[in-house]
């Protein structure tokens, strides 16, 4: 029979290291130091993944008779991970035995520019058409004229540019021992399955409880600091303390996800009274950016847990929260933002102009709202995640927020590169739409993303009928000009 005293002793023995480590983490967070443990951990993981992938490949070579899908295993050291990621994705497309994907690239090559409509190719059929002597009217139609549209339609069904941005990026070259990233779990070998099982245990039974503990700690810190700040009558002191408290909070939270953040070009960190724009992949983006700088956030006032978080955060800094009804009134939003910027001490406003989470392979249309505030300086930021250790993309149609957070907490780590870009302002005679495009192109270039003009809102809504009318008009023009 075990007495309660003994039970307590056992529990405290188990908890003691946890508490000890938590205290260590907190101190490190507050002082912005790092023991480098996470980086070592990630390097170790990379080696393990390469090993597992090698086993998988060897198996595939022996099974696959033609062996056409081979490429020599290339170990990717994490230091060069960020450079290799873009070429890795391309390589995957090349050796992919299904040709349809690469055909869509061909279609893209033919496109001169990306714009709102799906620009059809310039109908190469035209050059080789048999000329008709009979017809004299200015409309020339041949039965073969529909072929191009048919082909585009079929290509769109097989692989289109838009829907694939709203789901997690496809299978990686290196399998990271998470079954959720593999479309189908195939049994390769005992060793790999064993590795996966080991990984599963580590992630769910060691890392996860620890991270959960840290998360609770973070929430407690946040609530505690909100209460603490209430006792400061002077506004300045409140804001100054608030700034540092905020950063510490986010550093704690980033450790919850084992986030390894590399910040580039810190000289372009956003300053007070400006607007910071970034591409959006997940709610964690905010945490990541906030580890280095404090922002004023802007968004709709939500209910529930998130709403409470919003209200608490409002104690530490000036955030702009809207009621849902007000959000539709763009003028008022713009006005509030203007006021905020003009008060020079105010923190930079953080905005995600895409409006929704995209899967980090591309940047979609930036809504022009915040770019219409001409007095503001825009500091663009490109956030690039390394998918190998955890896919940060939040597919809101697939997962609820809490489910997503748990998925994040049971991934290996979140490795992210944050690139601060030089500030941009709107130029003479430039429209806000053009300015938005310019900023988007800069972010896409830095992060190695595909620059798309499609609206992120297409995730949930159907496209407008105008697009079709535009295609019809083009067809008509084509008929006329033969």
């Amino acid at each position, binding site marked *: 029979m075990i007495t309660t005293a003994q039970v307590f002793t056992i529990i405290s023995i188990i908890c003691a290291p946890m508490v000890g480590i938590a205290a260590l983490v907190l101190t490190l967070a507050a002082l912005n130091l790092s023991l480098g443990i996470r980086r070592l951990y990630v390097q170790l993981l990379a080696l393990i993944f390469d090993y597992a992938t090698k086993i998988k490949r060897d198996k595939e070579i022996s099974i696959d008779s033609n062996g056409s899908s081979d490429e020599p295993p290339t170990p990717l050291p994490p230091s060069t991970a960020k450079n290799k990621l873009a070429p890795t994705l391309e390589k995957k497309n090349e050796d992919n035995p299904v040709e349809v994907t690469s055909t869509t690239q061909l279609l893209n090559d033919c496109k001169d520019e990306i714009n709102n409509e799906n620009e059809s190719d310039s109908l190469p059929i035209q050059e080789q058409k048999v000329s008709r002597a009979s017809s004299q009217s200015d409309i020339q139609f041949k039965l073969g004229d529909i072929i191009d549209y*048919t082909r585009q*339609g079929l290509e769109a069904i097989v*692989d289109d540019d838009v829907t694939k941005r709203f789901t997690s990026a496809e299978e990686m070259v290196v399998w990271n021992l998470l079954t959720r990233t593999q479309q189908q779990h195939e049994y390769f070998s005992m060793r790999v399955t064993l590795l996966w099982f080991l990984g599963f245990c580590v992630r769910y039974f060691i890392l996860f409880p620890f991270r959960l503990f840290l998360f609770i700690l973070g929430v407690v810190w946040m609530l505690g600091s909100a209460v603490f700040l209430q006792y400061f009558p002077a506004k300045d002191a409140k804001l100054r303390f608030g700034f540092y408290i905020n950063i510490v909070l986010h550093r704690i939270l980033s450790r919850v996800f084992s986030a390894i953040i590399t910040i580039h070009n810190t000289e372009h960190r956003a300053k007070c009274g400006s607007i910071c724009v970034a591409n959006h992949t997940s709610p964690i983006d905010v945490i990541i950016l906030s580890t280095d700088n404090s922002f004023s956030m802007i968004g709709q006032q939500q209910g529930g847990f998130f709403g409470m978080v919003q209200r608490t955060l409002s104690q530490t800094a000036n955030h702009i929260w809207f009621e849902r009804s007000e959000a539709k009134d763009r003028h008022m939003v713009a006005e509030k933002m203007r006021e905020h910027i003009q008060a020079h001490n105010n923190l930079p406003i953080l905005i995600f102009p895409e409006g929704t989470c995209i899967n980090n392979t591309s940047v979609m249309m930036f809504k022009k709202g915040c770019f219409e505030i001409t007095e503001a300086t825009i500091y663009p930021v490109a956030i690039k995640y390394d998918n190998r250790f955890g896919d940060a993309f939040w597919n809101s149609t697939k997962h609820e927020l809490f489910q997503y957070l748990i998925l994040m907490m049971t991934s290996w780590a979140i490795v992210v590169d944050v690139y601060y870009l030089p500030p941009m302002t709107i130029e003479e005679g430039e429209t806000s739409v053009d300015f938005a495009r310019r900023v988007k192109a800069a972010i896409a270039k830095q992060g190695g993303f595909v620059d798309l003009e499609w609206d992120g809102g297409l995730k949930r809504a159907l496209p407008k009928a105008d697009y079709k009318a535009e295609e*019809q008009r083009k067809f008509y023009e084509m008929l006329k000009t033969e």
Partner: protein
Amino acid sequence: MGQDISQIDSNEIQKMLQKFGKLDEDNSGALSAKEFMQIPELTSNPLVERVIDIFDSDGNGEVDFTEFIRGMNSFASKGDTQYKLRFAFNIYDIDKDGYITNAELFHVLKMMVGNNLLDEQLQQVVDKTMIYSDKDGDQRISFKEFCDAIGPSLREDIINHLNKITSDDR
């Protein structure tokens, strides 16, 4: 289309299955027109209804996976060229009776051109095309007449264009 589906290899079928699964939101096992319309590039394509209709060989308004694969099979690069031309023919042949009538041609052209042409002008274009292509005078275009009307150089074009959707060489 009753041809055998050995033209596409298993990897391609795998990819199709994934794509099919992504589009099939309600997991009904078949794609309705609404589910196809989630693809923005498809929605702006004036011929989308015709394409979906051709896939839907049993005419129940939805495309199940077998119909999907069969439809895609026409574009396997190793496939018979007849199937590709047949696909192009089927764009026009709405009631699938093997002949393109004046009304069907008008209907499809109307889809393509929208409101940019008056109906009378459109009818003239259709009549002209019918006269040109209808060799045996039965007021409709059969598959053979279609192939002849396209002309050999265009035929190559069609085949090449429809080839590009799934093809090995680039």
